[in-house]
């Protein structure tokens, strides 16, 4: 009985990654986030494409973390972790959805400008 408590190899549900998986997860996540940063700094995509590309990169980063860091799969041993992840999906949709809805409406009501690109070129105190 004793001993099995402290030996992670005997517990698939807490046995997460190995050194290689951690390193791979770290590199892939940093690379994906870095790519998103570069895309943002270059300003050379249309707004819609930009949102899609950055969203896609974020999804990939999430996936690589889930798989490489947490070793998440659909096996029985991982059930609590995979179910928890799935349970956050509705929360994600609700919060992001409501946020989009309120800012959409706010924008229409308060930000009507002849040329909305003008807003992006205003100088700020930080400059």
């Amino acid at each position, binding site marked *: *009985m*004793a*001993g099995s*408590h*402290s030996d992670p190899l005997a517990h698939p549900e807490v046995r997460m990654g190995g050194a290689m998986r951690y390193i791979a997860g770290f590199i892939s996540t940093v690379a994906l986030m870095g790519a998103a940063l570069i895309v943002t700094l270059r300003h050379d995509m249309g707004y819609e494409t930009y949102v899609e590309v950055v969203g896609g990169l974020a999804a990939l980063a999430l996936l690589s973390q889930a798989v490489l860091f947490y070793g998440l799969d659909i096996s029985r041993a991982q059930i*609590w972790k995979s179910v928890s992840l799935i349970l*956050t999906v509705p*929360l994600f949709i*609700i*919060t992001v959805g*409501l*946020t989009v*809805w*309120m*800012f959409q*409406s*706010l924008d*229409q*009501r*308060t930000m009507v400008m002849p040329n909305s690109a003008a*807003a*992006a070129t*205003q*100088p*700020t*105190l*930080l400059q």
Partner: protein
Amino acid sequence: MQVHVPGPWSPLFGRLTLDQIPYNIPILQYTFAGAMLAAIVVVGAVLYFKKVGYFWREWLTTVDHKKIGVMYIVIGLVMLFRGFADGLLIRTQQVLANGPNAPGYMGAQHGFLPPFHFDQVYSAHGTIMILFAATPILTGFQNIVVPLQLGARDMAFPYMNALSLWLTAGAAGLVMLSLFVGDFSAAGWVGLIPLTELPYSPSTGVDYWMWAIQISSVGTTLNAINMIVTIVEMRAPGMTWFRMPIFSWTTLSTNIIGLTAFPVLGVALALLGADRYLGTHFFTAGMGGNLMLYTNLFWLWGHPEVYFLILPVFGILSEVVPTFCEKPLFGYVTMVAASFAIAGVSWVVWLHHFFTMGAGPDINGFFSVATMLVGIPTGVKVFNWAFTMYRARITYTVPMLWAMFGLFLLLAGGLTGMMLAIPAVNYTVHDSVFVIAHFHCMVLLVVAAAFAGVSYWFPKVFGFRLDESWGKAFFWTFSIATLIVFTAMFALGFEGETRRLDWTFNTAWKPMLVVEEIGMILYVISLACFALMLVFSIVNRKKNAAGPDAWGTSRTLEWLTPSPVPFYNFAVTPQVNTRDELAWRRKHGLDKAQPEHFEAIHMPSNTGMPFVIGMLAAVWGFAMIWRIWWLAAISLTALIVCVIIRSFYKNEGYHLQPEEIAAMERDLALGSVVSEQPDRSHHHYSHVEAH
């Protein structure tokens, strides 16, 4: 990419210079003298009685959930005291600085606090009360009580539990340090945007606020994970979901909120940090930034956070009320359902904190209705407690008095919350002190439940009850003070006093401001009663000694253990037969049954690593605040190295031998939380593999 900061900066000390020490401000001189005196007394006592080793071995390195809980509550109470001192300063300034002819002292034009200092005081007050007083106190109760209620040996992850505590402690230390080195944020506890941006708050105040919250909320998030896993995995045999005590249920629901909400705060503050440190424009007024995105993210966490505070309070009430009504809780299943309904709804109401943003009638209408929906499960709970008390044999002990006062505050706070949830009403009283009075009813309900919990569970941890008469004196002075201060504050809200005024310009407010100040004086008296209660309780501890069931009418599993509860909790893991297990055993005459023999218990070893990591996190926060990059790099690297080293520990723990358990069960003082334990590391598990 690094942002240019105003004022001097040197590679060695960052922004830190000698004139960042505010030695010329009289209030801070007194505070500093007081703090030093307290430190000398405490450190002196520890040295004089040669207790350094004891504190290190038994407290700073402990992984015992009860000791960790006690330390959480002590930190919370110290911060509650600090926050109260801030509140006293705010109230005194507002009553002194009333009207154009109000005299000024100590360099202030009116009153005694100049605006910039006053703004720091209320910002610190709110931040401290919510994040460093209420949160740690409630976390402390969950730590102490939940494993006991579930029949568990400890939390699921004892090491991570200690880590959560020391992260919180380190962050609280940073907040306190801002008194004497630099300054604190002057932008409110919510971080009013764009005030928190570097051009508007160029000093390190906002950085103290931001990093202290970041560090402590990592601790809170880890603790939430720990609590959830403990409840899911560590229940004693027979403890099915619907036999679980309500406090454990509310702990589960509240920590689901904690786990999902705190990362949002982390993101909001990280983006703000990017603006302040890297020159990005997430929340600026131009360059594609949007101020309201910050407000949105903050309240996306902020509203769930207020329910994160209130749900454990509902749990405490649900334990205290049945005990002193000598009846099972009315409507157990609806209580569970209501807790989860509240947790769920708390995620879709956050816009009610910024109705005045102008998102439009559809959106304000949606969030108004959603907010009011919270009233349904809350109403269910209130009726459940009322029906529990209906025709019951109520004993008016100190915990019960606090619980009943709590119900009153819940009603006052809940109904005014409903008023605020109506956008038309909200537009007229938003940012007035009416809002302040509303939420103080709610957060003082948290305080009331905290004191209910302290007096209720104190005998379980320390083996004796708190002094009843001083406890009652404390209760009455405190609750009457609350009524005086906040009734007057509701009135001032209707008279149009806006919040956060360093100068109360309208002389018509004077009478109510004076009433508030009278209430504050009564609060000070109540503090004296609290101190006397502690002194007399310790003096009379023999007389107030408690048996396993300290109140004689308790119902849940924690009261099956001896008082003071030994560090291994249950000598033999209990087999649970029903809901309200202890009440059931008492009825069947089984509550005094003793096991025939003991078996060795596997315990985790203490470790200093969480303490070291918590302190490194605080050093790292300090370095980031003052932009001392070399120190930040070293402390962060050291922290990560510690985490990696620790993850290679086997931590095999040790085995507590049956003879030792038997001895400690005979003489409870041997195993209590304050006792010193011999070194048992030689009882390595491999020697007793036979078990």
